[in-house]
């Protein structure tokens, strides 16, 4: 993955930039020492690193505005950052950029149960939003596995999902409003505690724009009453086709589980070895969770059992209580940890039409043989969002490149069967160069035109999302203006 070369004219202005930033921020909020800027050299895509020119940690929307105004005037690129858990390199800096971190902006501004929303500063972590309301019986629904660490800022920028989005939707479906600062320092409010916007749905395009349209400092989020209870069921199948058909029949029958997770044999084996959750050894395993009162749960599980029976499961276990539920989820939740024990791994994130599941798994198996790298599949089966984990050895020269080539082939396969490159992690730098496989040049042009409007100088997170060749002319304008 290439990044544009830093602009020496910008790097040369570092001293002036730091001086001006410290005029508007407390000294502790401007990080420019080379050793300290290293803390911001990467996100969770750790294969790519580059310390920024400086990092700033503002505490208010006004400070964010002041920083952006200065960077805008000086022509310095800005990379917004939440908690740095992006798996796509979304928060990766360049050597001529300023990291703008919102981590210090983590306050709850307003909690309103009658109107079912919470307003927070976006540096607040995902889990602590639920933490602020759960004692009163409410929760914030989108639940990425990284929810302990990731911030609402990054969730909005990536339109993050979670295990329960089959029922509750992803970030964009739970976001009601934002306060956002444009690259020139202009502060704007979009949406709020009422539903839907006056005029164009700007909120809809901001969510998922990967920090390229503005810096989001506050968010109004929908909160929901916690369900009375939830229980999972686990079932094993001796073919992927059987598991896939079972998922499809459950959905068709009108049961709407909150989660349907799928694991294939390599994944089951690795998780079992790691977590000893007592999983059956079989080709495919489903974990399905339903919600409601005890009677409602029993009823839904009885329907699911009846449907599953037609697909000859080799194992079927209902959780009778919280402890059994914990054991069923244990293996799935330790999937990434389990892989990490065995090997270095790369986590992909393509989405496919649910009906293409058996074919895609078969072809991933063929590719795995071709590349000589192992792969394990975990999968949000209800919505087709796949997470193939490719195993490789980072210390062996050439393996990262081989792994990336394998990953690219899998993502192209997702597109070929009617799906897409990324279901929840975002494009960042990781999938940037594959965008041409999903979109025609005119499709990318339409998206870049949106950035032209919000950030005409292309200073906000400029080297992401769009293939460098496609965005080059626009980024060149900025450099020419130096």
């Amino acid at each position: 993955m290439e990044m544009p070369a830093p602009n020496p004219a910008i790097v040369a202005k570092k001293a002036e930039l730091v001086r001006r930033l410290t005029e508007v921020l407390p000294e502790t909020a401007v990080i420019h020492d080379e050793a300290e800027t290293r803390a911001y050299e990467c996100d969770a895509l750790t294969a790519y690193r580059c310390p920024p020119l400086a990092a700033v940690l503002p505490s208010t929307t006004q400070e964010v505005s002041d920083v952006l105004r200065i960077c805008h005037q000086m022509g310095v690129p800005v990379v917004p950052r939440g908690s740095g858990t992006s798996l796509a390199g979304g928060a990766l800096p360049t050597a001529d950029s300023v990291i703008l971190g919102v981590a210090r902006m983590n306050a709850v501004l307003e909690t309103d149960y009658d109107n079912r929303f919470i307003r927070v500063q976006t540096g607040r972590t995902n889990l602590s939003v639920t933490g602020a309301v759960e004692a009163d019986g409410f929760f914030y629904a989108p639940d990425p596995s990284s929810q302990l660490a990731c911030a609402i800022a990054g969730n909005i920028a990536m339109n993050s999902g979670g295990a329960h989005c089959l029922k509750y939707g992803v970030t964009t479906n739970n976001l009601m409003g934002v306060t956002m600062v444009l690259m020139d320092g202009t502060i704007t409010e979009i949406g709020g505690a009422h539903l839907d916007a006056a005029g164009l749905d700007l909120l809809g395009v901001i969510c998922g724009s990967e920090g390229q349209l503005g810096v989001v400092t506050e968010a109004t989020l929908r909160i929901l009453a916690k369900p009375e209870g939830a229980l999972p069921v686990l079932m094993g199948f001796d073919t992927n086709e059987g598991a896939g058909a079972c998922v499809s029949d459950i959905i068709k029958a009108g049961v709407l589980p909150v989660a349907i997770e799928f694991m294939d044999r390599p994944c089951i084996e690795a998780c079992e070895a790691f977590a000893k959750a007592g999983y059956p050894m079989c080709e495919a395993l489903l974990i399905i969770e339903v919600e409601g009162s005890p009677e409602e749960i029993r009823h839904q599980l009885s329907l699911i059992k009846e449907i599953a029976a037609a697909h000859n499961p080799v194992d079927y276990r209902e959780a009778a209580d919280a402890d059994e539920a914990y054991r069923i989820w244990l293996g799935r939740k330790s999937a990434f940890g389990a892989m990490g024990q065995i090997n270095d791994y790369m986590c992909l994130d393509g989405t496919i039409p649910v009906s293409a599941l058996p074919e895609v798994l078969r072809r991933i198996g063929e590719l795995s043989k071709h590349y000589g790298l192992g792969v394990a599949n975990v999968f949000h089966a209800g919505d087709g969002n796949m997470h193939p984990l490719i195993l490789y050895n980072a210390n062996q020269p050439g393996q990262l490149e081989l792994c990336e080539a394998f990953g690219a082939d899998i993502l192209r396969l997702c597109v070929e069967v009617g799906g897409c490159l990324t279901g929840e992690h975002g494009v960042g730098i990781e999938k940037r160069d594959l965008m041409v496989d999903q979109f025609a040049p005119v499709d990318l042009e339409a998206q870049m035109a949106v950035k032209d409007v919000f950030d005409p100088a292309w200073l906000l997170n400029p080297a992401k999302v769009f293939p460098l060749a496609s965005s080059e002319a626009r980024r060149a304008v900025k450099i020419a203006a130096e």
Partner: protein
Amino acid sequence: MRPETEAELAGLIAGRDAPLWIRGGGTAGVVPDAADVLETSGLAGISLYEPGALTLVVKAGTPLAEVEGVLAAEGQRLAFEPADLRGVLGASGEPTIGAVAAMNVSGPRRIQAGACRDFMLGVRYVDGLGTIVKNGGRVMKNVTGYDLVKLMSGACGTLGVLTEVSMKVLPMPEAQGCVMVDGLAPDAAVQAMSAALGSPYDVTGAAHLPVGVDGAPVTMVRVEGFGAQVDYRTGKLRDLLGRFGNVRVETEAERVAAGWRYVRDLEGFVGVEGDLWRISVKPSDGPAVLAGLNAVKAQMDWGGGLIWAVVPAGTDVRARMSVAGHATLVRGTGQPRFHPETPVNAQLAAGLRAKFDPKGMFNPGLMGAN
């Protein structure tokens, strides 16, 4: 003009620069005199429907009724519950799925299931230069590139002509029930609806009719699901709402459906003279806004957050709103149909229009388009 294919449409647009009014079923009302009409009815038909994947891909000019019929045959539906406002708009013709998408039309279930835009997975459209563009796709989770799907839904055709939309559909529930509280004033009604919406019983509709079918105020709370589930939840809600007033429960499916159709389609508004407004506010602000309207006829949906009101012609409803929110003039003239955006957002919107429709052709006069 009535193109039969997307390519033909693209050619038509590329070759002109005079204003153009996009028309689906034409049921939403006026066409400015200056604009030629572009009919979308030639772009019709279902391109793909996979019930097991809850996915529908359909051409924009397809009648909404046809879409709903095809889904119903598989026991599925558009969960955002688009309304049929022909009665109250005095229109005939067949509303189209493309217009529903372009207007982001959503009914009572919007508070629980989401708006039309939340169910839109992908679009194909022709922009103001005649370029065919696609965004999103047909899969449920997709964050690949910017979400122009949301931008197009709700743009009312001012950014381009939708040619095809993909949507997530949902199963129709086995049963539905409605819990009704009699005789509440609007503020008590909103409190009751907030209590219901803040409960774990997954309420899928919460509306208040100051004058119900029998002439008295009624507050309605809907639940949907399996039969036993609906019985359980209506029972729980009956207990929860007992402190607000006399509570009744209806679980006869056809009666519940008819009651919510009455709310959704504004059946009680048919024949009432005056301007028709649609106002979105924070639910707890609803009663005060309603009181300030001097409405001839009104109802609250979305737990109090959506007010539909008929007011004497020419009333400046926006001047009477002192809270955050927005008001749309759905029937009537003499005022802008859409709520003015803040100056910064209006400038962003104008910038987007200049990019998507540089010749300023689409739907002149509507929503900031000129």
